[in-house]
């Protein structure tokens, strides 16, 4: 895509790199559209402050919304597994691949995201550490929600009391962890200025070349080259630092 600014001779060339398939984007929004109503109806039984909403017919309606949304929520991984099983396996494998660069990312997260120090960001693959953490939490959470939710829906009265109680506990645990994670995910993906392209990529499936270079160097340059560039960059920084101190 090329852009020419008004009254200017220079032309911006933006190369867009595909990141997500159409199905992936559709499923992501289906996930969002079911997760938010699920969380909002779920908190009604969880928080004593919302007691008045939980009472009588209102409470029954809340449960109905929760159950309908749950069907769509559960449908997301099933549709993905049926329609693009290879992409699913690929993604799960990518999610579970953690390296020393993830520790560096965790160290760099505050200076980068809060203080805007671009040089602090170590190279990252197609999904950075935060994205992968979010994904792992969501996958584990979805499995937990699936098992405990179905058990509470269809198994009440047919399973030992203690087992049912454990289901309630794990449903709540998954709720706390995934909702907290969702809030951070929402902030970074929708509000944070540096991440503006994440929303673009979930809408159009592409990210710009410059964004891919800064945020996902291992994906853009390849593992080896990205690491070499990082080492070189680190060495340069170290060289400069003592000089600055002396000066």
């Amino acid at each position, binding site marked *: 895509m090329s852009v020419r600014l008004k009254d200017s001779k220079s032309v911006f060339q933006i190369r867009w790199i595909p990141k997500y398939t159409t199905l992936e984007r559709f499923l992501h929004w289906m996930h969002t559209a079911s997760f938010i109503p699920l969380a909002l109806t779920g908190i009604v039984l969880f928080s004593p402050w919302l007691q008045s909403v939980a009472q009588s017919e209102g409470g029954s309606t809340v449960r109905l919304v929760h*159950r309908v949304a749950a069907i769509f929520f559960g449908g997301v991984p099933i549709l993905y597994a049926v329609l693009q099983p290879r992409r699913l396996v690929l993604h799960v494998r990518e999610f579970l691949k953690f390296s020393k660069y993830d520790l560096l990312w965790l160290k760099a997260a505050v200076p980068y995201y809060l203080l805007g120090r671009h040089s602090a960001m170590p190279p990252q693959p197609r999904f950075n550490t935060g994205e992968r953490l979010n994904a792992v939490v969501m996958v584990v959470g979805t499995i937990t929600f699936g098992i405990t939710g179905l058990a509470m829906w269809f198994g009440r009265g047919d399973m030992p009391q203690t087992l049912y109680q454990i289901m309630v506990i794990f449903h709540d645990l998954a709720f706390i962890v995934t909702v907290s994670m969702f809030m951070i995910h929402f902030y970074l993906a929708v509000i944070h200025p540096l991440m503006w392209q994440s929303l673009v990529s979930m809408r159009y499936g592409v990210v710009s070349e410059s964004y891919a270079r800064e945020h996902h160097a291992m994906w853009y340059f390849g593992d080896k080259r990205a690491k070499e560039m990082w080492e070189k960059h680190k060495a340069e920084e170290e060289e400069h630092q003592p000089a600055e101190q002396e000066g």
Partner: protein
Amino acid sequence: MTDRYAMYIDTSKCMACRGCQVACKQWNDLQGYVPGVRETVNTGTYENPLKLDPQTWTRIKFREYDDGERFQWLFLKEGCMHCAEAVCVDVCPTKALKHGPHGIVTYERELCNGCGYCGQFCPFQVPQLEVLNRLTGEAKSSKCVFCQDRTTNGLKPACVKTCPASALDWGDRDAMLDKAKARAELLKTEWGFPKANVYGEAQLGGLGRIYVLTAPPSAYDLPETPSYPATATLWQKILQPVGHLAFGAAIVASITAFFLARRNVHMEEVE
């Protein structure tokens, strides 16, 4: 002591006529025999129905007990124990279940949304869920409320009123406890029931039913030491506050991050 009341239940006097079951249904407008809907099924025992259900708030449980010295046919009037530390009250998200006057655990059907937590956490598995639709989860819970419309107006519960054997009584809890202890002592010394005992004095902060038993509680399938479920404590006392804290922290962190990032991140530097 307090204004706490209790039901005295002397199993040694009970003859299992089940008049209490009938009186309960009559006063509380519960279904008995309804052709095509609730039919009596012969299962080879006098016990009927076989467990508490949404339309049966009290029933006589039949158990056989043989300790090697003598055989006993035991009759136990089952129903809500009205615990002082009632877990159902704590887990109920609608407050349809509450601690009411005279230590009664009251139930407001209109407030209930049918979540079923009460029955799933009750150590005696008393609250019964009437499931109208399993798919949508439409349901209502139900249980004995010690005929609160009668007892708050100076009357005795319907079952106590009807009991022809005087096995049941209703009154100040301390008085009922004294009566039960005296009766158990008498059963031990005079009537040849060496294992006679009182059940309900201290369990779960003291039950609203004081039983005089002629055999160990286990013979009646009563839990010897019923306990407040640890899962309920974990859920109510730990997970709920932790959850609120986590959500609060995530929101505060995001807002703080928003302002920090706005100050420090310069988009002009971004290619």
